[in-house]
């Protein structure tokens, strides 16, 4: 949303800086303020977490929810938690996308062991298992052109979903994610002005 009101993600520096925040955040907060009448309970309060928003969606209290793990939708629709009419909405401007990553602390005493684990997590078998919606349903980070024939076969065996479009559709026009330092600043401004502002 910050990207959208700022005129695209290219206008927002990925690393946090206070000047950029002061310059860009008012437009965002105004937009959020204007949205209030259309929101759940007219924006007088908000769900505390994305889990709670999901629960509201499942309970028919809101018309949309958001997720970082679209592949889980298949199961949620199949078991009747989400309504059968659930559809994935991709925006023309694109949506924020990211890849989960593993990090090794600079103080780690087991550097090589950690690297072995990271390599296993990046293996074709593990990535294919992770992408299986019956297991976890997170999209793979591997480049599909670089896969071995056996690896490619593994991914081709994965079931397609009646609800979730393929990775090509979802990742098209993916916007990069802001640095973590943006989060507390945005969080605090939202809490003060939108949440507490009644």
């Amino acid at each position, binding site marked *: 949303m910050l990207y959208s009101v700022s005129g695209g993600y290219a206008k927002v520096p990925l690393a946090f800086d206070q000047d950029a925040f002061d310059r860009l955040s008012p437009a965002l907060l105004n937009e959020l303020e204007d949205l209030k009448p259309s929101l759940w*309970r007219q924006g*007088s*309060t*908000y*769900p*505390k977490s994305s889990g709670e928003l999901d*629960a*509201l969606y*499942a*309970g*028919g*209290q809101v018309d949309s929810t958001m997720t970082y793990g679209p592949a889980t939708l298949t199961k949620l629709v199949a078991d009747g938690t989400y309504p059968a009419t659930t559809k994935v909405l991709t925006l023309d401007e694109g949506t924020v996308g990211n890849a989960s990553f593993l990090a090794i602390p600079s103080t780690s005493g087991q550097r090589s062991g950690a690297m072995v684990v990271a390599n296993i997590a990046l293996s074709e078998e593990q990535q294919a298992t992770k992408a299986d919606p019956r297991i976890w349903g997170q999209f793979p980070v591997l480049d599909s052109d670089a896969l071995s024939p056996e690896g490619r076969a593994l991914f081709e065996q994965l079931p397609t979903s009646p609800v979730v479009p393929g990775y090509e559709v979802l990742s098209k026009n993916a916007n990069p994610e802001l640095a*973590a330092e943006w*989060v*507390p600043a945005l969080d605090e401004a939202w*809490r003060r002005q939108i*949440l*507490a502002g009644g």
Partner: protein
Amino acid sequence: MPAAEVLTARTRPRPRTAAGHGTKARVQGLLLAVPAVLLVAFVVVGGSAMVAAQSLGLMPLVGRPELSTAAYTAHGGDLLVGVGLSLAIAGASTVLACLIGFAAALIMMQGRWCGKLVAAMSSLSIPVPHIVGAATAGLLLADSGLLARVFGAAERWPDVVGGQWWLAVIFEYAWKESAFVGLVVAGTLATRSVDYEETAALLGAGRLGRLRHVLLPLSLPALIISGTIAFIYSFGSYEVAWLLGRPYPEPLPVMALRLYNSVTLTARPEAAAVAVVTAVVSLGAALVALACLRKIPLWR
């Protein structure tokens, strides 16, 4: 707690002490309590002291320790609102719990099937962990919960969960604590009320008269004790308000936990400051309750 028996215990003659009164025996007697005392002192005294030190900036995660009250004023307004909100939630649920619990105790005391039914049903809720109580209260009362579904209320269902009046939170506390208050008060009445009631009836007291002049005064100490325990518990407990409440304004424990888990390093002292305020109010409530108890002739 079965505060009920405080009274009965006091009326019994003090047991004679087994081991004479020599200094050695006295020291040995005192030593028996030492393990428990050490553990409690470590947790209660140590914990409170460390929290106070953190809130005053004496134990920062990074940087030099420096005495300051900044943590208390950082969220000045929100902290006061939190005190008010927590007091209101704990107060409302305690009043409800005492009223319902007292009514339940009166019914339990009558024996027969009514009393047995109520006693059995209320003991069902005793071993329910609060987090489970909160989860099931949510399944019952949410906008898409069981009651809203059964009544087909849809849009007309009131904002019970996450609403302005914190009704679901108050409901959960009142539900759990009313069983607690009921069983404690029933315990007191069970041992003491029969003779008094009969005497009063013999002297011509009506039902309301017996309630007002016999049953209520007899239950008062147990009501105060169990009510205070319930009040302090709901004032300082996190999970119910977190699960069934709304994100703003925040009760003190929810605010404290949010700051405690915040990624901002300066938030730790602020979390500690909220904890200190919670502890001071809780202690105040306990002292007020003790002062009230002392005024009651039956207690002395």
